[in-house]
């Protein structure tokens, strides 16, 4: 194995390792634009030029592989001077429209100028005018070629990752422009990623544009709930300045590097699957049938709900049904199992998906559009159409007195007509969920719950990998986390549970079920401009 020395630090490396990779291992960051660890090497930005002893010319750290005895200097005067000049070249025809640019604050040009540039402008010439200012190139992305530094990351992404090849570089020299091939639109299922990997403001997100300056954003590690892949994401929220996003708190989701699952990427379905966190929410406990609905206090509601359950159970444990959801976290499912199966010994507890199956591909997207079917399976809950048929039959036969629903919209999901008439036969529907739907409107009790963005917990992806998400936001209004609601309900039913917090629940759950110990830790991603 070759031994290399970088800035005086010597290290043994695998054959084939590039200088930029070794430097990163040693904690030395070499600036780069075109280099992206998930893409092929283009070597065009020249930002990562470093000095390698015995080479007369500076070498690009992204391409040159370490050989034995190689001595590299990444911070010599010559390197610094060259970096400054390369940056100056990149800015020669850049419009410097930072005040109106959505990338400002997370822009590679701004960042490196502060770190490696700091020269006075020497440009007296007219800049090369590119064909068009910002124009949409698909459903999700806006292109402004004037800001582009032609690093070709987007071209390589569309060639190598999605293999859809929408992007090309057209013309030559300083008239070169990124664009789409004639007749193409950027509408592949991963189009949003080109915004993440674009180091400058050339590709911006149509959904996020001008909603909020990035320096107001708070970033929280989370897990995508769009399908069963469990892509690692960063949830970016703004609560300090509610006027910046029309009161919406979640501003955007970004992929977060996770080598074991999603690498640097996420799909558009997952990326834009966040509006429901701030829209259509139920923020107050509600009771009463649809004609006589009224808001209630949690205390009232808990009393009524527990009475309802207790009474139904006393009549017949067979008359209470619970529909668990693969949207629930492991912890939520674990407590639900404890309460409904172990304590109340109910018979009819079924897993029921709120979403239909969808597309699947070889990259990330899974047809199962729920984050935690595997977690439910570990706890012994499998979805089974026959169970649901039995349940419907029992409802028709007036054998179900109380139905506890975890957020699913039965009205739109069950094909049985006339479904609302069927559901009306249930004397007591308890709806425990975050967002209103046709079923919540029919419910006799609404327990407004926090979304995953407002909770702590974990999901188990389709491969059995357990991943924790953090709480990004406080629960909206009177909404409470699943755990809080379930513990309250249990207490109300006279069950004494310890004063668990989310961490305690997770620990107990892992102690009880070995499978929940298969935790994938968040990766430490040093790659800039990728998330």
């Amino acid at each position, binding site marked *: 194995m070759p031994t290399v020395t970088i800035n005086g630090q010597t290290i043994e490396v695998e054959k084939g390792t590039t200088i930029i990779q070794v430097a990163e291992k040693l904690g030395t960051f070499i600036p780069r634009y075109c280099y992206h660890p998930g893409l092929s090497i283009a070597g065009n930005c020249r930002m990562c030029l470093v000095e390698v002893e015995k080479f007369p010319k500076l070498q690009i750290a992204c391409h040159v592989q370490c050989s034995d005895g190689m001595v590299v200097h990444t911070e010599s005067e010559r390197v610094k001077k060259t970096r400054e000049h390369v940056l100056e070249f990149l800015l020669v025809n850049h419009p410097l429209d930072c005040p109106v640019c959505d990338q400002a604050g997370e822009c590679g040009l701004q960042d490196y100028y502060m770190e490696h540039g700091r020269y006075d402008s020497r440009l007296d010439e007219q800049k090369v005018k590119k064909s068009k200012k910002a124009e949409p190139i698909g459903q999700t992305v806006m292109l402004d070629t004037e800001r582009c530094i*032609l690093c070709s990351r987007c071209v390589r992404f569309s060639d190598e990752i999605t293999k859809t090849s929408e992007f090309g*570089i057209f013309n*030559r020299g300083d008239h070169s422009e990124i664009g789409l091939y004639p007749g193409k639109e950027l509408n592949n299922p991963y189009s949003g990623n080109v915004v993440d990997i674009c180091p400058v403001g050339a590709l911006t997100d149509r959904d996020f544009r001008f909603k909020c300056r990035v320096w107001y954003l708070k970033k929280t590690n989370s897990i995508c709930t769009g399908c069963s892949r469990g892509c690692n994401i960063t949830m970016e929220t703004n609560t300090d300045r509610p006027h910046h996003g029309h009161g919406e708190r979640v501003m955007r989701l970004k992929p977060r590097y996770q080598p074991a699952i999603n690498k640097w990427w996420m799909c558009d379905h997952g990326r834009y699957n966040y509006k429901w966190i701030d829209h259509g929410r139920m923020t107050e406990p509600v009771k009463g049938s649809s004609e006589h609905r009224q808001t209630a206090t949690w205390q009232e509601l808990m009393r009524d709900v527990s009475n309802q359950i207790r009474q139904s159970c006393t009549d017949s444990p067979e008359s209470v049904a619970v529909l668990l959801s693969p949207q629930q976290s492991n912890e939520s499912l674990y407590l639900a199992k404890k309460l409904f199966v172990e304590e109340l010994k109910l018979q009819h507890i079924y897993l029921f998906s709120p979403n239909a199956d969808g597309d699947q591909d070889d990259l990330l997207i899974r047809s199962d559009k729920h984050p935690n079917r595997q977690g439910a399976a570990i706890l012994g809950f499998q979805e089974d159409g026959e169970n649901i048929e039995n349940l419907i039959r029992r409802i028709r036969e007036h054998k179900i007195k109380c139905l506890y629903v975890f957020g699913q919209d039965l009205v739109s999901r069950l094909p049985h007509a006339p479904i609302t008439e069927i559901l009306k036969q249930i004397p007591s529907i308890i709806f425990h969920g975050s967002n209103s739907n046709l079923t919540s409107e029919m419910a006799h009790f609404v327990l407004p719950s926090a979304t995953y963005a407002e909770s702590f917990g974990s999901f188990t992806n389709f491969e059995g990998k357990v991943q924790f998400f953090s709480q990004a936001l406080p629960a909206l209004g009177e909404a409470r986390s699943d755990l809080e609601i379930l513990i309250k309900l249990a207490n109300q039913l006279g069950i004494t549970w310890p004063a668990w917090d989310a961490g305690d629940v997770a620990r107990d759950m892992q102690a009880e079920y070995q499978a929940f110990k298969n935790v994938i830790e968040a990766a430490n991603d040093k790659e800039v401009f990728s998330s």
Partner: protein
Amino acid sequence: MNPTNRLNLISQFFSLTDAHMLSVYEKLGGYEMAKKAIREMKPDAVEAEVRKSKLRGLGGAGFASGVKWSFVPRDSGKPIYLTVNADEGEPGTFKDRYVMERAPHLLLEGILICAYAMGIHKVYIYVRGEYLGPIQRLREAIDEAVAKNYLGEKILGTNFNLEVVVHQGAGAYICGEETALLESLEGKKGFPRLKPPFPAVVGLYGCPTLIHNVETLSYLPFILQEGGDWFAGLGTETSGGMRLYSVSGHVERPGVYERSMGITLRQLIEDAGGVWRGRKLKAVVPGGLSAAVLTADEIDVTMDFDSLRKIGSMGGSGGVMVMDEKTCMVRALYTTMRFFGHESCGQCSPCREGTGWVARILKRILDGEGRVEDIDRLIDIGQFMGGTTICALADGAQMPLLSYLKKFRSEFDYYVKHGCSLVESEPAGVSN
């Protein structure tokens, strides 16, 4: 050393009527050396002669041909390709055009010898898009050669097969850079490739590929005829043989001159009739537009690759551009830099942005808007524009930029100070 510096090897065909036709070429002894190689020589023996000949790559890089052959792996399990670089885009260079138009069979014979020695069965000739005449001639010559079984299957009764394909470029200068040429041949945009790997190992379609200039290959029949040592003796210690110099600009008789590598620049200019209109020499670009300019005091240099490198310029493509005393060096440099700005492929930021920026500054100076600090600024930009990129285009832009500014600084200072040219030239032979 060749005492007269003159010998008509390739150029013997230039002045003969119909030398492009196979029948005429055969009458002059054409294809005899290919026959000899294929029928009588072992591939190794051919390669040995080439190594002895000290033949250098005459497209511009001057790389020793024998060494280049030795880099090509023979046992990779993949086919080896020969790609002939006939892009001839370097301004001031027009010798390959002569070869293809007037002696296409000589090139084909050279190709045949090289292909035989290297075990190559497919050859692509990448010809500059504007070279419609040469392309026509090449295609006719290939048809003739196939008809007489100099090319095709079981050549001359042996088991050797060879197919030659002419590919017309689309006019980009950068496609003369060997890896951009390969990209272009593969149907992609002409972007130079990152090296390593080098084309000898991973070239066309990922296979080992030998890339040679037209002229380089065209010397192979002579090397086999008279021997490698003989050819080496025609040149200097390190650069074997003759080469074709394209002499243009302010000389009385511009044209292609076949001379020894050891000829002095002074002699070469004299052979081309000397500086025109009885004027004095001001400057010479000795090896195509990318070469550093030489002053009238520097023309006693011999024209081989190493001597020119020693004085900070290069032999390059052998394109010699002569400028008389009335040439405005500011305008000449602007024209030069505008060319590089126009032809930069746009991949690497220093070249993409630097060449255009330099051209725009020079334009401002020409428009009388120059400032004193512009000159040092140009030098500074130039220093970081070259040596920092994937291919040599930026280096080729850097050399004239820095050499013009250094050697003719007073003209630039004058222009900046007075807003007009020191020499008040008539159009300098290079247009605005």
